[in-house]
Every structure is written in structure tokens, then in C-alpha cells.
């Protein structure tokens, strides 16, 4: 599951997507150590569903596009494999169905309680994470590494960095 060489190290993945006007979605994955220091970053080129995909996927379009397509691509591409992927977008939980890496939504106070059961939640650092309903072992496996995350760690903050990096990428590369 983890690409970490040392057992006292935890690699965290932070994944976000943003919509680029008229060009679809791009996604980014930042790998950090347990203290939030960045180690690797990957982002995709924009991808947009065609009309057929829109019709056939219906409500499952976004989870497929963001979770399976963008999420899996990013996770396959990073050289440093994370022990956990954190996101703010519940659509990206779909990624868990295509990888062995636990995927969790970092909940805000407003979003807390919106779906999922309590036994799918885990307090990690200063954040509450909600895991995929169908993958029961994720919370337990993370419990064992919980001590590696400092209590003061804010797991929402790196997601902000990813969004900023994606916006910068759009400004620099794609907005031409």
C-alpha cells in the first residue's frame, strides 16, 4: 500500500480537481510527508466528457470522470505512492474502487454528517476524514499509522495548495 521505505514515515496524497471553462476538468495530486512537506506533484491536462458519455453515465458521470479517470491516472503516475489520499470532493471517493489506497474526504464542519456512517470516520491530525462506505478496512488500517500524524496537522490546508497549483497551471499553460 505504501511506497514508504521507512515504517516511521507516512506519505499522504492530496487530490483535487477544478473545472476549466469550456475545457473540462483538471486534477492534481500532491504527495507530502506526514508533516506536510511537499515531495511530488502531478496534474493532468483538461479532460471533458463527450455527449455519449454524458448520456450513458448520467449521475455517475462525475465520479467516473473525476475519480476513475483523473484520479486513477494521477495515482498511477506519481512515483511516490501515498498511504492515503485525501480530498475535499466526495466524487473522488470513487477512486477507491480502482485502487488499494484508502481514499477519504476531509470534512469541514459544514459537511460533517453528510452521508456515511460514524464508523467510516477517523480523526487524523486536526481533521475528520470520511472513508468509502464499501471499504471497511480503511479506517482500521489508518488507525495503526495515526500516531505518525501530528495532532496539529491540518489536512485541509494541503488541498488548498493543490487548488492554487492547479489554478496556476491553468493560468500558465492552458489559458492560451
Amino acid at each position: 500500500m505504501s511506497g514508504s521505505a521507512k515504517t516511521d514515515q507516512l506519505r499522504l496524497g492530496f487530490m483535487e480537481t477544478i473545472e476549466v471553462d469550456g475545457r473540462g476538468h483538471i486534477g492534481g495530486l500532491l504527495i507530502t510527508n506526514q508533516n506536510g512537506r511537499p515531495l511530488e506533484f502531478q496534474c493532468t491536462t483538461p479532460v471533458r466528457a463527450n455527449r455519449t458519455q454524458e448520456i450513458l453515465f448520467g449521475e455517475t458521470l462525475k465520479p467516473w470522470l473525476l475519480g476513475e479517470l483523473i484520479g486513477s491516472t494521477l495515482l498511477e503516475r506519481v512515483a511516490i505512492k501515498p498511504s492515503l489520499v485525501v480530498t475535499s470532493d466526495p466524487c473522488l471517493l470513487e477512486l477507491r474502487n480502482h485502487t488499494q489506497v484508502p481514499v477519504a474526504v476531509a470534512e469541514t464542519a459544514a459537511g460533517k454528517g453528510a452521508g456515511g456512517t460514524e464508523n467510516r470516520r477517523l480523526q487524523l491530525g486536526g481533521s475528520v476524514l470520511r472513508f468509502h462506505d464499501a471499504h471497511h478496512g480503511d479506517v482500521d488500517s489508518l488507525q495503526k499509522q495515526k500516531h505518525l500524524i501530528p495532532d496539529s496537522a491540518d489536512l485541509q490546508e494541503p488541498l488548498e495548495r493543490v487548488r492554487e497549483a492547479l489554478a496556476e497551471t491553468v493560468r500558465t499553460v492552458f489559458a492560451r
Partner: protein
Amino acid sequence: MDADGAEGNAAELQADSLESGSEVLLPQRPELLSTGFNPALGRVPALETISTTLGLTLDFVPSWTARRIPLKCIGLTLPEGVEFLPPPPVKPEGTAETKKAAAKPEADVVDGEAPKKKVTRLKPPPDALSLQDRLFYLLQPPLESWLAGQELIMPFEPFSYQYEGIAWLFSSQSALLADEMGLGKTMQTITAIRLLLRSGQARRILLICPKPLIPNWQREFRTWAEELPVVVMEGNGARRRMLWTMPGVPILIANYELMTRDLTEIPEDEQPKFDLLVLDEAQRIKNRESNTALTARAIKRRRSWALTGTPIENRPEELGALFEFMEVIPKGGSPDLRQLSKLAKKYILRRTKDLVMKDMPPRIDRDAELELTDAQESAYRIAEKEGVIQLNDLGDSITVQHVFELVLRLKQIANYDPLTGESAKLERLQADMEEIAASGGKAILFSQWTKTIDWLEPRLKEFNPLIYHGGVPTKQREPILAKFKQDPKAHILLMSYGTGAVGLNLQFAGYVFLFDRWWNPAIEDQAVNRAHRIGVKNPVIVTRFISKNTIEERIDRVLREKRELFELVLGEGDNNNRSLSMSASEIFGLFDLKARHKDGARSIGPKPVSAGGEAA
């Protein structure tokens, strides 16, 4: 169509043809077109059923399969940082040296939401063009969390303007940090260096500072970055040669003199290379053609930072020398004022206490205008009268040096009468010190002369004075400062402007005495700021001794007028760094003499004060 309709149409067609005189169309009779369809309608249809099988394959089957569309990715691998020494074991609580991890949130989750803290994000430098370079900065954690005791322990929580300074330095290739004295340039620089090393942006750093400040830098590194190995350039030539080129030394500290001496001797192809070169008290290279400036500019490095609280001591052009070192202007370039101002906005970060430390206890300045004692008065008048006569006798051969010597002589008498030892200043000082000592306070006294300091020492015995001037060997200086800080009976530290004015942290002293006046208030301010700086908890009372009706009063008046006259160089709110040194004309004017030398506008103050040199 029925038959009547057809006939009607035919008649109309014929009538139209007649009117137009063209050929007549014969109507087609319906019976000629009979198909037998109408009778067929009356017959019963014949039906027959047959059996057949459906085909197993279809000719056309539309199909769609959900397939992964290959996506392109843009990647960035961030460099591995320098592995730091493991943090020392935490000392048991209650010991004086136990450090608190700064910036740790008081409560991680309050009602489900982490408390909001101000964060300082790193911004890509304006000259970073590639996406990878820009992303590197954007992907770094906010400084507050980076320094929040996770990897890098900070002994004290920095102020927000210090976070900004650290972030600015971290993302600058060329930077001049010109914060006013006392705002923590050292700490900001050390922390930015720490982050550069930690993030793999630098592996080898050279810091050049005046020799007396080396122990200060070592101490500050121990305080702010105890995990960083620091090597000081010292020893004989062979050892130093080895240190200059030895790999695996993250931080090398050398003084200006050794830098100039050693590096000019090392052949071009063996010159050491650095990821970062920091010049502390960078005004030392303001003379572009000096060996110091030439050597500093020749050092191979990727980043160039300069630190000074007085980026302009006399003329705005001095900035040009610093900009040339920072490689933001071409070699020998002389930017005009407009260009300097533009460059300053981009490459200089300067904050004043007035702007950032609104809650800092105030500095209270008071001028002690003292009447000379009778013996002093008599000695002074005689010396002045004879001196002026001598100057007049010199006629055209008079130089500014002659006048200057008289000024110094008179200033010395204003301090004390060498014949009788009478001193109005000493009397006042003793009176003030009794009060300060009684309340357990500490004071720093500055004088231009080591001789005056040595003269004062035995006369202040009851206050256990300590001496810190150029005559004190470097190795003995740190223990003196430590004793002054720790010994409750040591109430006064006697310092020379030259040695004590820069780089020292003495914020536990609540009183500063300027026993005699320096030629440039910016230097006096530097001296005062040894006490009035970050960490000061109480107001600092600064007493400037001025002997009435003497040269001191006249010098003070000239300096005050200049302070008011000169325009602010580095923006509003800046009350330092003006061109305040006295010119030759002004020195001549002190005795109603006119400058008779063509270089009358030349500044003739003593050599610029530096931490390494004594003024007198």
C-alpha cells in the same frame, strides 16, 4: 383527384392558354387513366401465412464501452532537503531552557472546526517564469505550519511581519533586507536559510559578517536553528583553505577581512561555489571599487542576499553598490534616483519599528543639557580660543583635518577636564546610575573614545561597570555580555560606538546613555537599538549628554537641521538613513570658518563606523 376537379382544372388551363394566345392543351380524361384500383377495393384480400426463423446475428449493432481515455500529466518532483541533525531530547519541564513549540494550535478542533489562523503563503518570485519554478513555491506549506514544531521547531513565535520577511527572503534570488535595527533581520535570515536547506533549495551557504558579530551569529543560529551545523572560518591559512572548499558544510561563516584575504589567493578554477551568499552589515561594500566589494561580487553563488539596517549611510548612490552585488544592475551601472526607487521596491524589504511594532514599548529620548564645571569651562575656553587662533594663523594651508582635531579636543574636554578630572557629565551619570542601580536596572553607555571609557570605569566602581570596546580581545567579549545579562550587580556596560553599535542584543537594558555624540545620528540610533529592539518589555530611556555652549551644542544643532532637511530616501515613516554625516563645510562652520579647500563638500566625519573598527 375526382373527375369534376380535373375537368375544372383543364378548363382553367385552356382559358389561360387562349388568353395568352399559346397552344391549347387538351384535357386528359380521367377514364383514360383508369387503373382498376377502385374495383379492386371492393375485392376481399387474399391472405396467406408462412413460418420463418429469426436470424442469429444482426447486420448493425451500435455498441459503446467505457474506456479509460489516456490523460497527459505534468509532473514536479521536489528536491530532497538536507537531512537535519535529530532534535535534542526534550528537557524535563521546568528547566529554564525548555523551549516551547511555537504556533501550536491551542485547540485542534473547536466544534468541529479548526481555529482560523493567519497564514503566510510563499509566493513565486516575479522573475520565476517556468511552471515548475512557480509551483515549487505554491506547493510549500504556509510558513506558520512549516515552522509549527512539526519539522522545524521555533523557540519563539515570530511576528507576522517576520513571517512575511522570511517568505520574501525564501523566494528571492536577490534581496536586500533592510529592516530597521532591532526588528530581527538575523532571525529572519536564519529561518529563511533553514527553509532553503530543508526544502533542498540550497546546500552550501556562505555568510559574511564583521568579525565581532561572528559570536552573535553563532549564538543566534543556536537559538533559532540548533539543528544546523555552522562552521566558522578560522585558523591558519591551510586550515582556512581547506574550510573554504570542504564539501558537506551547509553554513560557513567568515568575516570580511578573511573573505578578502583568502579568496583573492585561491586560483580562479578552485574558487568555492555557494548556493547562497549573505552579506551582513552589507554597507561594508558600499565602495564599489574596494577589495571587499570586488571580492564579494566575484564569489560564485546562485543567490545573493544583503542585510543592513542602514542601506544608505550618506548618499543614495550607495545603493548602487549593493544592487551590483545583488546582480540586479549591470557591472558599474549607475541607476538614477527614479531607477533606484524602482529597484528598491522590487529588491528591498524595509520595515521600521514605527510601522510594525506599534505595541512595542516606546523609546524615550531626553537631552541632558549640562553646564560645564568651572574647571571644564576654563579649560574649554582656553582650548577653543587658542585653537581658533591657530586655525586662523594657518591661513590658506588650513585643512579640514586641522579643524577636526580642534573639534575632537573640545569634545574631550566637554567629557571631562583632563587636568582636574572634573566632569559635569560624570556627576549627572552617577546621579542617574544610583537611581537605576537602586531599582535593579541596567544601562549601556556609549562613547566615541575608549580612553573616556577607561577613564569612567574606576569612577563607576559602585555600579560594577563592564567594558566592551575594541581594546577588549574578541574572545573575552561574549563572556562580558553574558555577565552583564546575568549578574544582577553589573548595572552598567561601557561601550564604544565602533564596537558596540551593531549586531548585539541587549534588550534587557532599560537605559542608554550617549556620553558624547557621534557624527551621524543613524549610528547613534544603531547604538540605542541594542537596547530598544524586539523582546524589549519596558520603555527604553535614552539620555544624550550635551554640554551647553560648547561645540557639542553646535554639532547637535547642525545634525538636527540636517535631519529635518533631508528627504526621506526609503519611504515615509523612515526616520533613519538620511544623509546625515557632517560635511567639511559644516565642520568649518562650527567655528565660523569657511571651507578653503576645494573638497569643501566632502564628508569629514571619522571613518565610517564599523563593527570591526574603533573610531578613536
